């Protein structure tokens, strides 16, 4: 996929591809929150889901995550799962609150970690 043209997901995509990939993401959660307020096209929805799936996987498996990313914000509703990455990492996040397509990624990561 060509990401050379800036779009409404560019900031989140950059956080995922060039920060989370090295255990960081100084604007990851803020960027995801901003996008959550948009009314997205179907293409954007699909692209966002693909990025969200990557985030769930990386949070589950990444070996060098910076601790601040796992500091959850109890003031923010659990439905905004990107502010509760600590619970995602520790598998204590209630899967039922995730959209179905993300739930399967989360549960698969949970099972693989448990089996490891």
């Amino acid at each position, binding site marked *: 996929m060509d990401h050379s043209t800036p779009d409404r997901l560019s900031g989140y995509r950059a956080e995922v591809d060039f920060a989370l*990939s090295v255990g960081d993401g100084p604007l990851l959660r803020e960027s995801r929150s901003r996008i959550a307020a948009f009314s997205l096209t179907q293409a954007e929805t699909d692209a966002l889901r693909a990025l969200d799936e990557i985030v769930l*996987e990386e949070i589950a498996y990444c070996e060098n995550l910076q601790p601040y990313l796992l500091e959850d914000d109890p003031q923010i509703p659990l439905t905004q799962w990107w502010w509760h990455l600590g619970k995602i990492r520790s598998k204590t996040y209630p899967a039922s609150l995730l959209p179905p397509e993300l739930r399967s990624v989360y549960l698969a990561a949970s099972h693989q970690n448990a089996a490891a």
Partner: protein
Amino acid sequence: MTLKNHPKLHPDLVKSGDRLALEAASAFIKAITTPEWPFSKLQANGRMTLRTLMALQTHANLLEVREFLADLLEHNYRVNSRQWHYFKYKYEYNDPLINPTELDERFVAVIADPQAGVYVKTGRYVVYSAQEERLAVVALDGKRITVYRPDLADIAALGDPVWIIQHQIA
């Protein structure tokens, strides 16, 4: 540009004796002068890895791509972050990078921007240059972690900078 070529601790900072600021400035000097990037282990079957590998496979006719893919396999997906980001930028994002050293140049351009702000919310140093419209992350020991272009709409979330580069190094 002096900050790029011969950066040194700002004399006023040295006089101040501000330990945290001095540690940060020392990290920036190392980051500017020493192109050291960490290695990380990719999830071979992870979505992020597979997406990039798919983009690379469409360019497998190119020698540098073939060599990189072979190197990934040989080292069991342990990869230098500069290499990984270079190939992502070039072949997944169609970025006109010529070689990995251009990522070094982008990184240094951010850290050596006198007006760049330093943020410490993450446990590493985050440096944002409005002039370059890029953000760089520096490890506490001065290793280069990453450089990328954030969405300008998100920059305010960094808050106020703790320091400005021109007060750190000279």
